[in-house]
């Protein structure tokens, strides 16, 4: 049977505010357990939440970036359930009246760009963390994360394959990081994803029974988990078995999904408006203010790169995947004026070196100025493209500007015609047989002579001049 996959993703992103959503505690990751916890975090009797306005502003940025409608009045609600990492016995979230609704983002697919709907974006507080003792039946609670602001981005079931799911996540992640509202660190849990997945015979309108997948902490794992789950559901259907609506946990080591204990998901959250907080009123002036402060988003940047720099869409995609990389590239272009050549060097050598060491562009030893200078030296004919490969490796290793490296290593290109004529004459004289063969019609041997000249000059000969001389002198 031919099946269609239907996927909807829920993303939780931690916002990069300095303080928590409802108190003044720090949001810093990695501090000693419970060192960023106050009576509000602890849910002590009589304490009250006061909303951090920054959280609303950050969430509004994401709402605008994903083409959502911002609700002029949105309301915090209590989601009630018992768990030791949830001090109040309820999470303050939004339910009936979220911050924003009805948005979308564009993703690239094999069949071209596709619009994936965003159902809603709402603000909420994160829970704490349980630490289980490996040797004793004891668990500890760390409430540093309690009250760290989150936005939940609920996507429409518009995604049709695990690859599209990964692509959607990458795009969302990219926007969050571009907006500087989330650090996007999946391992530390700043960017988390749950997936709803079902299958249906192609052409059928109704959705199949869905399962919810949790515990995937990388884009790759999201894709793997979905691929596994789609196969599992197909197997069940093809064997006449029923798909059970349930929550399943991804087991990374085994590469499978397993059902969560049903007890853990049998919740009636009893949402109701939180009487300790007043509705958040967002007027047009506030939205306009946030709009005015929005940075250029990746999609727009990609389009601008293609149009203004005349580079391929693929290059634009790579160069804008990281905002800092895009800034680096633009700086190089500004200084050297050669967008396509700059793109080749940034995407080829610079990124290769960085990836080998798992470094980000911020840590790159080659400054934009040095790279631009090097491109200029090639253009002026001071070094050849081949030598430049050597030079940039040294620049990356030492952080020195290209001029210094060229001087120290004597890599300046030979452009003195007299000197080159001497070398070419000597090479021709030393290879009479090859000369005869070439003149006899073996034109392939031209390359042999080029190679010999380059070898004799340690690659420093200007290749164009070598070509011209050989053509003249071999004839």
């Amino acid at each position, binding site marked *: 049977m031919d099946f269609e996959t239907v996927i909807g993703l829920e993303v939780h992103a931690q916002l990069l505010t300095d303080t928590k959503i409802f108190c003044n505690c720090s949001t810093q990751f990695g501090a000693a357990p419970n060192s960023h916890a106050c*009576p509000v975090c*602890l*849910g*002590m*009797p*009589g*304490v*009250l*939440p*006061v*909303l951090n306005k920054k959280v609303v502003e950050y969430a509004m940025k994401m709402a605008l970036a994903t083409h959502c409608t911002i609700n002029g009045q949105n309301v915090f609600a*209590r989601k*009630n359930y*018992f768990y*030791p990492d949830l*001090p*109040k*016995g*309820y999470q303050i979230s939004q339910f009936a009246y979220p911050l924003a609704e009805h948005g979308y983002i564009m993703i690239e697919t094999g069949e071209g760009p596709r619009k994936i709907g965003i159902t809603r974006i709402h603000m909420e507080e994160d829970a704490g963390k349980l630490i289980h003792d490996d040797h004793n039946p004891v668990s500890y*609670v760390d409430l540093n994360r309690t009250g760290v602001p989150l936005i939940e981005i609920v996507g429409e079931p518009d995604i049709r394959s695990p690859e599209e799911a990964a692509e959607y996540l990458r795009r969302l992640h990219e926007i969050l990081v571009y907006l500087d509202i989330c650090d996007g660190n999946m391992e530390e849990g700043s960017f988390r994803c749950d997936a709803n997945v079902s299958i249906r015979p192609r052409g059928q309108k109704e959705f199949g029974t869905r399962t919810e997948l949790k515990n995937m902490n990388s884009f790759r794992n999201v894709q793997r988990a979905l691929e596994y789950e789609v196969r599992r559901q197909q197997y069940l259907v093809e064997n006449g078995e029923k798909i059970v609506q349930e929550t399943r946990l991804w087991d990374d080591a085994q590469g499978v999904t397993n059902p969560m204990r049903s007890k853990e998901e049998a919740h*009636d959250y*009893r*949402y*109701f408006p939180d*009487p*300790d*907080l*007043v509705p958040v009123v967002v007027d047009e002036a506030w939205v306009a203010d946030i709009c005015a402060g929005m940075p250029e988003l990746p999609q727009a940047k990609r389009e601008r790169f293609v149009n203004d720099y005349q580079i391929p869409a693929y290059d634009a995609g790579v160069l804008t995947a990281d905002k800092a990389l895009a800034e680096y590239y633009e700086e190089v272009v500004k200084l050297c004026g050669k967008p396509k050549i700059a793109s080749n060097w940034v995407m080829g050598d610079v990124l290769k070196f960085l990836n080998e060491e798992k470094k980000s562009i911020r840590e790159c030893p080659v400054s934009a100025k040095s790279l631009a200078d090097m491109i200029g030296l090639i253009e002026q004919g001071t070094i050849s493209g081949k030598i430049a490969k050597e030079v940039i490796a040294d620049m990356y290793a030492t952080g020195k500007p290209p001029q210094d490296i060229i001087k120290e290593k004597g890599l300046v290109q030979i452009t003195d015609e007299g000197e080159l004529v001497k070398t070419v004459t000597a090479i021709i004289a030393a290879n009479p047989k090859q000369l005869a063969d070439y003149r006899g019609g073996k034109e392939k041997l031209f390359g042999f002579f080029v190679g010999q000249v380059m070898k004799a000059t340690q690659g420093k000969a200007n290749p164009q001049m070598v070509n011209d001389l050989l053509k003249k002198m071999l004839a």
Partner: protein
Amino acid sequence: MELYRLTIHALQEKIRNGEVSALQIAESVFSRIDAVEGLVHSYIRLMKEEALEAAARADETIKKGGIQPLTGIPIALKDIVCTRGIPTTCGSHILHQFVPPYNATVVEKLAAAGAVFVGKTNMDEFAMGSSTETSYFGPTRNPWDPERIPGGSSGGSATAVAADECIASIGSDTGGSIRQPAALCGVVGMKPTYGRVSRFGLIAFASSLDQIGPFTKDVEDCAIMMNVLAGYDPKESTSVKAEVPDYRRFIGRDLQGWKIGIPKEYFIDGIDPEVSAAVAKTIETVRQCGASIVEISLQHTKYCVAVYYIIAPAEASSNLARYDGVRYGFRAADARDLSEMYQKTRRQGFGAEVKRRIMIGTYALSAGYYDAYYGKASQVRALIRRDFDEAFAQCDVILTPTTPTPAFKIGEKTDDPLQMYLSDIFTISANLAGIPGISVPCGFSASGLPIGVQFLAGHFEEGKLLQVASAYEKSAAVEKRRPAL
């Protein structure tokens, strides 16, 4: 001289004239407590040592001439407001050893105004009750008849004032918990507008209804207390940034040109005839003070109790979820796993009335019932609020009985929650509408039990309440008595 009998303003005058010291006042109050506390049981905890130290500090302040509105005045706090370093129990087993590391905003304000804290007063567990019988620490008795309840939930704060075990006290009112015990104990009690007095540090029962207010011996003292308590608090999101007048300037004004609204829905069958007679007399007295009487209608009154007993338990079921034995407070021993720890802790830690309300509230919010209960109740609540808005277009204040009967006997209604709930029938509406209300003594039953009259006003019109209550109080018609303890 029995200093403990005096009002705040009388004591202030004596302090200013150098007739008495704060220490003398404190000692007088504690000697009174020694004499009557065994009969009344107003307090869960006395703070004698701290009080005497604070009184000594107050005397230093007085000497330096830095006298504040409450300098040297002994004040009792309902054990629902958090006091830093002092156990705050909320009348419950589950918090019986809980020591907050912070002060409620009202505690900070009272301390800054020079108050001397006498102790933490008894209350119905988590403020759920109308008789102070559900306290984990045992019942409080009515000073006018120790066989009877003092009202609740702020029973201890009412009796502490009525029995002169403090000069004034703090209570909290979610459905009448200040006004009802004030009426039954013959003292003045005010529930301010929702948002007028900070709730920070007030242990929550029903967050959209809870409000802190004072118990005092007369209306002028109520104004003095409100001057200290009222005001915006950035620590509370529902606190309102509205200007706070000097409430004392409303004392002693007449009622010329005033219109007093009498809502027909509040004068129903089932009101004790002695209460009816006392309230009828009050209406006549207010008329003689210069006001005219207008009949008004609050047509959704009959739904108030039902709406309240959905909204309050719903919020409570969520507010009380934090008492889970994990971080502070009582934790049951011998649990085999997490779920058992929760169950045992809450089964053993909460009393029957609290559990009843948690269950009602959980039910009202649960999937499939939310719309029919909580959703509908919220809609009716909006109608109740509108009734008042319309009524206050026709009158300055509304006059009603505070309670349908005088104080009932201890144990009389403990087995009949519905009867118990009806004792708040006249006070609940003010909480649902968020408006202020005051209860003032208006007479006695034949058997000598106090009866109270309630005045209600529009949002942030506490001044009007003080004006009408003070004018009424000063009229010759009101009988002054003291409990024979």
